[in-house]
């Protein structure tokens, strides 16, 4: 038996032995927390429109995002968001609060290495790929729209 075959058999054996996560509880937790975050966002949005009747809907959306981002960063700073994340999984990663957490957490982690080369450099180490893929994806979609428009 050569090494390649041996490794293949071994990896198959390991794969069969790995403990599995139970999907149902994880999905439920994720749904609950994700739903609560979205509900919170909608609540903030509605509240803003009630308090400031002259505000445009677009400004209210933008302000809602700012409030959510602030809340998530604050909870990251006092060490609560990682506990929520441990419970919720994708439920607290996918909303914008997860994005905020992914920027705030390395900022806290690397502040000992200095403001510029520590915090500023590392701040986007997790969120960076999301931004790059987002921008690149939008460009691609824009290009397709443009071509369809020309045709």
């Amino acid at each position: 038996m050569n090494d390649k075959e041996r490794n293949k058999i071994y990896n198959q054996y390991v794969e069969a032995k790995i403990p599995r996560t139970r999907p149902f509880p994880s999905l439920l937790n994720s749904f609950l927390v994700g739903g609560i975050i979205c509900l919170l966002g909608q609540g903030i949005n509605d509240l803003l429109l009630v308090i400031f009747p002259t505000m445009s809907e677009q400004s209210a959306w933008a302000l809602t995002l700012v409030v959510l981002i602030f809340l998530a960063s604050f909870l990251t700073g006092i060490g609560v968001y990682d506990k929520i994340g441990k419970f919720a999984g994708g439920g607290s990663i996918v909303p914008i609060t997860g994005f905020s957490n992914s920027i705030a957490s390395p900022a806290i982690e690397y502040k000992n290495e200095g403001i510029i080369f520590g915090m500023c450099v590392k701040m986007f180490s997790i969120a960076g790929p999301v931004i790059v893929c987002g921008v690149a994806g939008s460009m691609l979609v824009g290009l397709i729209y443009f071509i369809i428009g020309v045709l």
Partner: protein
Amino acid sequence: MRTIYLKNKPRIIGAYSIVGPKEGRGPFGKYFDYVMDHDKFGEKTFEKAERKMIEHAISHSIKKAGLKKEDIDLMLSGDLLNQIISSSYAARSFNFPYLGLFGACSTMAETMAVGSLLVDGCYLNNVVCSTSSHFSTAERQFRFPLELGNQRVPTSQWTATACGSCVISKSGNGPCVTAITFGRVIDFGVNDVNNMGAAMAPSAMDTLISHFEDTKRKPTDYDLIATGDLGKLGSEILIDLLEDKGLKLGPNYTDFGHVYFSRGEDTMCGASGCGVSASVFNSFVMRKLLNKEYKRVLFVPTGALMSTTASQQGESIPGVSHAIVVESGDEK
């Protein structure tokens, strides 16, 4: 023949362990010499804390051995951080000659083996061997920031905040190192950095098989056979692998990583890190050897020799395990 027998039987005359609060709550809690109140150990950064743990453990192990710092001929140490800074920076505060060794989580056996050989060969009188790991320094180097809200996979392990140190000497009383089997680097093609137990188990198998073949001993000839940090999954894999090769490990086999933390600490497959085997050996195992409850122990710390760069480039994870035999020994 890979096993080396030490004729002059170097003695382990002083051992000391220091751990973090979470580790102190575990089953070995009462055996550790010192449990820190906080992972930062009064320092500004976790890296400085890890360094201070090594300094603390080394100073106290020398004191426990009844020696003075001037008596130490060589310090052997290693850890998980890039350029083994915890060890090297700790060595800066001592006046000993220093050898930095890296064997990932197998480092405790590596430092003890090299130290024992140097003493056995009558080149040196007293050497101090140590290693450490720290959850927060390892986490940031190998994984994600601490405050990131992500979930751990069921095969992952929790890096222990722990450090152990021992003094090996030509004279004095204490358990003696009688044989060493150095490990080969073994890679069975496991790529998953969250499943280090599976990556390291084949190396433990290789070393154990060589050891038993060379020495013509059976697993039952030992009071304790302990691997370092294979964790729950890894140790089960090791038992399976050895059974395939016709070697049956009995109830005298344990994996320190598997039993290191209390249940309910959310550590998935258990503990990992150099500090696991270092702290348990230098507290629990040494105590049992000293009161002769254990007569002969086979200590096999296991190391995963990967780096983040190699893993990102698609490399699989090589493992290494060194085995050393420690016997309770008669009074000299």
